[in-house]
């Protein structure tokens, strides 16, 4: 009888990359639900559309590269990229804008670099940044007015029609500047109280946005609990942003307050779902702390002094650049060694 020959270990934990990605998708659903409840059908339609485009473009490229299509599609990573874009694009972004974002994410940022595991930049954020720079109007004026799904929000068909039209912008009454945008541009001439009287702020910190961020925070905590991500990047991300806000923007009449930074825009989605993309993030604990903190600081800098109201995509991409450098200098200290071996072979032997 021939016995199976196998190298140790013989036992394996039954959690595959596909399952890891599936958990990421599941953990993002509360956020999507909150988006839909507070901003209408836009995000849901975007998510479905983006995932479809992501899977299609991934399959097309895999075919061109002569790779087994089903094997790679099953890893769910293309679906996650599509999901993240659908969650972060404006609700009324035209279909072709989101399509371009997804295709460039999958084709350029991921597959042209060698596919899963080889991309130095977060694919979703490459797609996002590309359309943000290319179509600034479509990307800044298409944010839905916060309106409860069952009360005041445009109907599903209306939303679908608006997204499916070739127009850059939609009916004026449906959209509204985001709280971060509003604050940034009005605080120069108005007081904090005057700025926050704008309907996009509501009674809390940022109408609708606070719930969406809370939902992504909850989903992120689930991922940490399942040990799919570690706490290092989200915590240092939020800490970096928070410390910058407390250090430079404590005066609400001058700069957006900390609460707005944390609960408006893509903060929680960025901290728990985007910055934690393992492929393009730093690897060691120490490296992750530096990487996350760097993103948080950059977000604050761009939101406050840059020309864009939100900055998750740019900050993540900038820190992606720094990852090889961070990794090079932050290896852990191995058991039995006095200190970590930093740098390249032949130097700093420790």
């Amino acid at each position, binding site marked *: *009888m*021939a*016995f*199976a*020959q*196998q*190298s*140790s*270990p*013989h*036992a*394996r*934990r039954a*959690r*595959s*990359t596909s*399952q*890891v990605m599936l958990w990421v998708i599941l953990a993002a659903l509360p956020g999507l639900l909150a988006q839909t409840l507070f901003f209408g059908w836009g995000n849901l339609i975007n998510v479905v559309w983006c995932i479809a485009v992501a899977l299609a473009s991934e399959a097309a490229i895999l075919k061109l590269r002569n790779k087994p299509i089903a*094997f790679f599609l099953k*890893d769910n*990573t293309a679906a996650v990229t599509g999901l993240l874009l659908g969650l972060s694009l404006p609700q009324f972004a035209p279909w072709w804008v989101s399509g371009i974002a997804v295709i460039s994410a999958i084709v350029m940022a991921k597959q042209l670099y060698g*596919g*899963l*595991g*080889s991309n130095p930049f977060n694919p979703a954020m490459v797609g996002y940044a590309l359309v943000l720079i290319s179509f600034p109007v479509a990307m800044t004026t298409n944010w839905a007015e916060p309106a409860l799904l069952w009360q005041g929000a445009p109907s599903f068909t209306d939303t679908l029609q608006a997204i499916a039209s070739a127009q850059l912008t939609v009916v004026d009454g449906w959209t509204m500047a985001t709280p971060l945008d509003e604050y940034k541009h009005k605080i120069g001439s108005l007081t904090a109280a005057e700025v926050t009287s704008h309907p996009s702020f509501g009674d809390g910190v940022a109408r609708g946005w606070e719930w969406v961020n809370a939902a992504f925070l909850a989903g992120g905590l689930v991922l940490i609990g399942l*040990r*799919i991500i*570690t706490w290092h990047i989200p915590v240092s991300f939020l800490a970096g942003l928070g410390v910058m806000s407390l250090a430079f923007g404590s005066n609400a009449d001058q700069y957006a307050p900390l609460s707005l930074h944390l609960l408006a825009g893509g903060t929680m989605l960025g901290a728990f779902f985007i910055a934690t993309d*393992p*492929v393009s*993030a730093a*690897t*060691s604990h120490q490296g992750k702390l530096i990487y996350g903190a760097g993103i948080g600081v950059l977000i604050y800098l761009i939101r406050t002094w840059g020309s864009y109201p939100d900055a998750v995509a740019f900050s993540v991409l900038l820190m992606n650049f720094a990852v090889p450098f961070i*990794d090079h200098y932050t*290896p*852990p*200290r*191995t*058991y*039995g*060694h006095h200190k970590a*071996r930093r740098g*390249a*072979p*032949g130097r700093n032997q420790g």
Partner: protein
Amino acid sequence: MTQLWDFSGGIHPAENKHQSTARPIRVAALPEHLILPLQQHIGEPATALVKVGDRVLKGEKVADVTNGLGVPVHAPTSGIIESIAQLPVPHPSGMTDWCITLRPDGEDQWVELQPFADYRSLERDQVLDMIRDAGIAGLGGAGFPTDIKLRPPRDRKVATLILNGAECEPYITADDMTMRERAEEVLAGFKVMAWLLRPERCVIGIEDNKPEAIAALRAATEGTQIELAVIPTKYPSGGEKQLIQILTGMEVPSGGIPADIGVMCQNIGTAVAMSQLIFEGKPLISRTITITGEAVREPGNFEALIGTPVQHLLEQASLQPDQVNRLVMGGPMMGYTLTTTAVPIVKTSNCVIAATASELPAPPPEQACIRCGMCAEACPMELLPQQLFWYSKATEFEKAEHLNLFDCIECGACSYVCPSSIPLVQYYRYAKGEIRVQRAEQLKADRARERFEARQERLEREQQEKELRRKERAKAAAEAQAKKKAEAEKAAAEGEAVDERSAKSALVQQALARKKAKTEAAATAKELAAAPAESAVEKPDLEALEKQLTQAQAKLETMQGMLEDAKAQQADNVDKLERAVAKNHDRVDRTQKALTEAREQLARNAETQTPD
């Protein structure tokens, strides 16, 4: 309560231990054949002391290591030596090796046994020799000879002696059952070790998933100074380095051994073997082994003779042959697959898993690394498994080594957690193997170069000696000639009768003079060639000169060394060597002079060039 530390990483795989703890340890029936590999563990293979056809008694030495590291092998029962041949042995490669095959005669007749219950009255060295003679090697890991381990170097005093009862690998329960059923023996053996080493602290480390064994040991350690440390269950807490960290908070330095930090770990099975030797006089001829897996109907532990074929043990545990898909020697994390059930168990065998296809399924195909870092979270050595994987895969071994590849203990935790099903440990083994091969080749190349250089030096030396001898001969000949000439002149003055002879001798002299002139010319040419700086070169080659000087100095030293040796031995070539030394001395002086001149010239050149 003993203070405990944690080690980083670690995993919690399904334990699968209950299957083999339901039954007490059974004594395996005598098999038809016992196969005793001459190499059962780390060290040199033993040499057979018996011939085919010999009858041996139980406990009789049948093989021993005469040269180098190793311990003897004993007959596990009485019987006839049937063959000494190459047979399959338990090894990851499925290789064959020399084995003594013993056919038991069923009488189980012991040699005369000499227990030394009063071992404290003996010299420690005597006891250590007994341990070696009893063939005791570590019954855990690599099977390091216990007597050598128990003789740490003088400057490595063992302050903490640890008995490793963690048994963290899933499935294996041999130590667990031994502690439950034979706690007294475990303790007795441990005390012998403690007496040999005189440590300040004796501690038994045991995972908290073994309550019965803990209770048994607690009762046995009652009233002794031996600590019982119950540690949290986490794989690989039984790894030597991890257990030391848990119990002492110290880390074994990379590339070092526990004795470097005053710690030593011993195995439960080894302690039992010690006890059997000291109190019963028995050498190591049997051990406890777990036979488990879903393909055996009655999994459990067996007290089995060393050399018992795996097939025999599987049958004892009611094997269902058609169910076996994978046969693992050792645990599911670090064990290796067997190709045949014909292999015997050896001193280091602690478990055989006959697994069904659903129990240990074939791994899914390898996916791309998504750099999720779960491997780094699981690594108990705080390595960067994914970087090691990239570098191993890309054969960038230098970088892998830089990231401490050789600190990897191959525990398998990284592969276990990898969601992309990458066989990480396999990549590391490959990289380690390749690096070892490269090192061996480098060593070989270095040796070859050294040999070549030594040969060149010797040839040159011989050439010089030849030259020297030739010159001496020429000198002697010239002297003889001069003498002859003088005689001839004398004779010529004496009379005309010798005219003819003198003419001949003049001719010979002319020939000699020509030859001498030629030799001198050649010598000059050689010197010119040897010192090109002396010829009218514009820019003297300082480097070459310096090299020449060093070479000449080195040669002078060698010559002087040889001369001293020769003087000491009163050899007959002393004066020859003295001359050689003088000659080399001159050469050194000459080269030095040339070098100084060259430097001056360079300086002059520099001066003349600066104004431009």
